[in-house]
């Protein structure tokens, strides 16, 4: 480029520097413009306002008998609401933290011990674990069992065995009164 072009001959040392500056400045502007275009393009793929707006669900607990689990839909995915039996609560509370691969005390996961509310999504690759219906396999720890790649969860929804790395997450929820809970 430099060889045949007359302008480069007529340019002083200064002119060269000025050109370097222009190239840099133009390059930087181009880079910023690219980011400014790519950013919104990527952002469009994030959850839209209406999807975010669907973010809470109310559940009436009065009809759930002891030992029963219901599955409600929250943000398109299942949430397990289990009315735990005394045995289940005892088993969950008895587990010592160093047996757990994702240590968390039961009291933190279920502040109201009879009600365990967890997302029904296996933390491995997202299948819905079995164990909510009567007759479902519940795995070796009496909670849930994920059939996809064999993860076992206990009566507190904590991962005890299998490829899943973490406990079933506890969604944010609040008790509106004794039998009404709002998830999300």
């Amino acid at each position, binding site marked *: 480029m430099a060889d045949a072009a007359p302008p480069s001959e007529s340019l002083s040392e200064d002119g060269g520097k000025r050109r370097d500056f222009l190239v840099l400045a133009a390059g930087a502007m181009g880079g910023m413009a690219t980011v400014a275009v790519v950013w919104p393009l990527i952002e469009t*793929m994030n*959850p839209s306002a209406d999807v975010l707006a669907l973010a809470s669900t109310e559940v009436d607990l009065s009809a759930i008998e002891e030992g029963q689990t219901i599955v409600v839909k929250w*943000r398109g995915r299942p949430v397990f609401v289990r009315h735990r039996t005394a045995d289940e609560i005892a088993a969950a509370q008895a587990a010592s933290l160093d047996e757990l691969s994702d240590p968390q005390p039961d009291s933190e996961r279920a502040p109201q011990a009879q009600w365990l509310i967890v997302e029904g*999504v296996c933390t491995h*690759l997202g*299948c819905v674990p079995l164990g909510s219906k009567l007759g479902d396999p519940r795995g070796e720890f009496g909670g849930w069992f994920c059939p*996809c790649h*064999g993860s076992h969860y206990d009566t507190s929804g904590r991962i005890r065995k299998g490829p899943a790395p973490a406990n079933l997450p506890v969604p944010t929820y609040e008790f509106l009164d004794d039998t009404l809970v709002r998830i999300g």
Partner: protein
Amino acid sequence: MTTPVPQNRVAQWIEYRLPVFSWTNKHLIDYPAPRNLNYWWNFGSLAGFMLVLQIVTGVVLAMHYTPHADHAFDSVEHIMRDVEWGWLMRYLHANGASMFFAVVYIHLFRGLYYGSYKSPREILWWMGVIILLLMMASAFMGYVLPWGQMSFWAATVITNMTSAIPWIGETVVTWLWGGFSVDHPTLVRFYALHYLLPFVIFAVVFIHLWALHHRKSNNPLGIDIKSDKDTIPFHPYYTVKDMFGLGVMMFILLLFTFYMPNVLGEVINYEKANPLQTPAHIVPEWYFLPFYAILRAIPDKLGGVVAMAASILILFILPWLDTSRVRSARFRPIYKWAFWVFVVDCIALGWVGANTPEGNFIWIGQVTTGYYFAHFLIVVPLIGKFERPTKVPESIHQAVLKGGEGAGEAAAAGAAGAAAAPASGEQS
């Protein structure tokens, strides 16, 4: 030889402005191809045909399909029952995807056997690997479109793999989904990409062929073309040979399409997606099974995902892992065996992938996964160092005319070439 400049005035007018005639001649008619190509060299053009068939049937399906979580499933049933010939288009498209993969896998293994990935064809090889990755993405997203149980749960399991990425994993899945689970926004974006990617594949195929026509085809002997005597014109020899292969492939594709259109699919995909219930047994389509087996062989979430990705990405560096300077396995007594062991290993992985990971399948999956990587990282580099290749012929035409290893097919091509050579001068 065909004259590159057309005689017809209209054709001349066009040729002057856009040289389509000389271009076609250069790349499809007089194009010099090695005279000894065997039937394994059919699979490239067959893959090209399958891509076109997928696009044609796909566009027709798209005219009747509804990309909506509430209507997609019913619209596919509408295609099957109400749309004129809709069943044929859908079965061709679904079984066509399988045929496409079968053909591309054979094409790829052909390259592994004859050393087609070696210099000067590394970029050609890379383009092939990129096409494979894009095909996998297209097929995966296409499979989600009918919104059956398997569609939904395959989408869930596969997209969740990105959540294994440390720190940003969760943000990335939410972004992929456009929500908090696989749902309507996910379906629509998959549809958009499923429509787009095949055309991206088309563009990459173009680069693939550009590289191919620049350095020309490899051949069963794996030696370079040295003179005109080593080649024959693409037309009519290989056009005819490709047409014959196309007939055989279409016979197989139509056999599936008409007589067993659902054997490769999963019955449960005729049940509408239910986000609250996972089917008892999740399996991907057959062409993903070996990779699924690799994913499950590693008892760690991130590790499994990394191994699965690595199993394909490793193909990119194969040209440097193979240290042998001889291309064709025909002259490589040890590699030849390693190749077949590797084929068996891949089939075994597929078999493991189709079964629940319990009992013996666990260790078989781990051993076959281990061997898969060992083949590339240990076996192939070492063979290249220690193997003593047998004598490689001087040139293609000498091997073809004198006989020797592989004389049968080569001589046949040579004889046909000699007999028909004068005739080709009369054409055009």
